[in-house]
């Protein structure tokens, strides 16, 4: 029996499990998936929890509900991978061997990387919204909060879902407006980038929204430490921003098992070929999603587009054929802008987010880089798509390669 081993049962791992389970002959192949947490979190939903739009039950399901029958499921923490022996050691002592390995161990927040962040004020008036605990605690805090300085701070890049902190700022503006206390809340967006977002054209649009919504922006701020006593974040070059409530996006790192395996970069992300998704160091190891060091966004849509490429390439390798599928860096993100509206952006390694319609020209129904109600419904509907189609590895009616169809080339630059 040949062995396919998948590490991590999040979005990427679960999708790959379903795809290979359908494609590989069970008489020839044994498929195993390893994870140590039974709950699957719909991570895009965390954003809505602090504002009472989603409850905990909207974003959690048992992981096992999405696994096919006849696969080995091991719920145990990973100790380390030893690629030279084609072996994975688990914390409880289990030893697994593989012919092919897919690493889908994701990324997680590491607040301990910043001095004073996880201090006395943690979950008192400092919160993250990238974990269920952070999002829930923030929801309870907001319910009773009487207002003050709300600071949204990105510690350093890369982060999971680079648009989420902006969406958070927009939703906060809406939430406090609805509560008739917007005048009591000063919203301040603080980023290490030189503009509001990683992509230039979109950054301009976002900067306009921030101004329009009376959200103060500070750029080029690299957070060095948090002063708990005086409630300030302080940059490496000694700029200070005071807060009453700090919503932090801490440093993101790959899983610690990658560090123990000596396979990652300084943030535990794995050097991966940006087109084939094969590990740069080992032919029989592939990496998907947030665990990679790719210059694409760390987001569920990216994992979805990567999954097709990864599947084709591993199948080619198994069948002794040349790997032809290439990932183009495609990402597709809804950006909630508050008041029941959203924007949609679609881009890849080479092309910036442009205006237009998606997925079909003119008809859409979604508008790119423009604020519409339909985009907002798209974002909410995506939760259903995620639970019912995406995780199970079913085909979605969108192309995994980015297309220029429906996009408008910038007229000013023409």
């Amino acid at each position, binding site marked *: 029996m040949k062995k396919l081993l998948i590490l991590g049962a999040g979005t990427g791992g679960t999708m790959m499990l379903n795809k290979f389970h359908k494609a590989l002959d069970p008489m020839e192949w044994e498929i195993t998936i390893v994870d140590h947490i039974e709950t699957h979190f719909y991570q895009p939903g965390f954003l809505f929890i602090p504002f009472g739009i989603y409850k905990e039950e909207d974003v959690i399901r048992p992981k096992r509900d999405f696994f096919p029958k006849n696969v080995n499921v091991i719920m145990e923490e990973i100790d380390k991978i030893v690629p030279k022996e084609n072996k994975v050691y688990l914390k409880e002592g289990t030893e697994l061997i593989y012919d092919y390995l897919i690493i889908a161990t994701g990324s997680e927040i590491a607040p301990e990387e910043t001095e004073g962040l996880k201090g006395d004020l943690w979950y008192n008036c400092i919160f993250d919204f990238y974990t269920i605990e952070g999002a829930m605690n923030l929801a309870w805090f907001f319910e009773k909060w009487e207002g003050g300085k709300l600071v949204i701070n990105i510690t*350093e890049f*890369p982060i999971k879902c*680079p648009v989420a902190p902006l969406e958070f700022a927009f939703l906060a503006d809406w939430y406090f407006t609805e509560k008739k206390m917007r005048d009591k809340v000063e919203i301040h967006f603080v980023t290490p*980038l030189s503009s509001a977002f990683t992509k230039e054209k979109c950054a301009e649009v976002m900067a306009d929204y921030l101004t329009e919504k009376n959200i103060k922006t500070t750029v*080029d701020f690299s957070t*060095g430490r948090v002063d708990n006593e005086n409630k300030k974040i302080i*940059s*490496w070059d000694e700029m200070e921003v005071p807060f009453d409530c700090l919503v932090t996006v801490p440093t993101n790192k790959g899983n610690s098992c990658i560090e123990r395996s000596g396979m990652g970069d300084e943030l535990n992300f794995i050097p991966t070929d940006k087109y084939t998704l094969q590990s740069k160091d080992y032919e029989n190891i592939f990496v998907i999603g947030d665990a990679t060091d790719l210059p694409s966004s760390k987001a569920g849509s990216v994992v979805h587009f990567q999954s097709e490429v990864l599947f084709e390439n591993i199948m080619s390798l198994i069948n002794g054929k040349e790997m032809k599928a290439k990932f183009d860096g495609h990402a597709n993100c809804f950006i909630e802008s508050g008041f029941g509206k959203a924007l949609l952006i679609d881009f890849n390694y080479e092309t910036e987010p442009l205006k237009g319609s998606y997925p079909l020209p003119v008809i859409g129904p979604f508008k790119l880089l423009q604020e519409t109600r339909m985009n907002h419904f798209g974002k909410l509907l995506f939760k259903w798509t995620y639970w019912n189609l995406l995780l199970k590895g079913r085909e979605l009616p969108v192309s995994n390669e980015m297309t220029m169809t429906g996009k408008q080339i910038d007229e000013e630059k023409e």
Partner: protein
Amino acid sequence: MATIDLLGKQIEVDADGNLVNLDDWNEDIAKEIARTEGIPELTDRHWLVINFMRKEFIEKGDGPTVRRLTKESGVGTKELYALFPKGPAKKAARIGGIPKPKGCV
């Protein structure tokens, strides 16, 4: 491709304003770029970082991030920001005549 005037020479730069050709770079050019970036004088500590950036770029095809600089160059984060205010990796790359590191999004 855009060019800029440095020490009386027209030198090619990319969209970020960083030098296109490694060979166009020398220490005098570096000092001149540093001045335009608001760094009047390059000390030994500046050079340590700049030379590390160039070495990494030549070996790996990409400049290091601040995190990697802190870990590998022997200069701590705090000092890096004091030497190259606002964006150590971005600024040291420009002064060192290499493209903006991909990690600096």
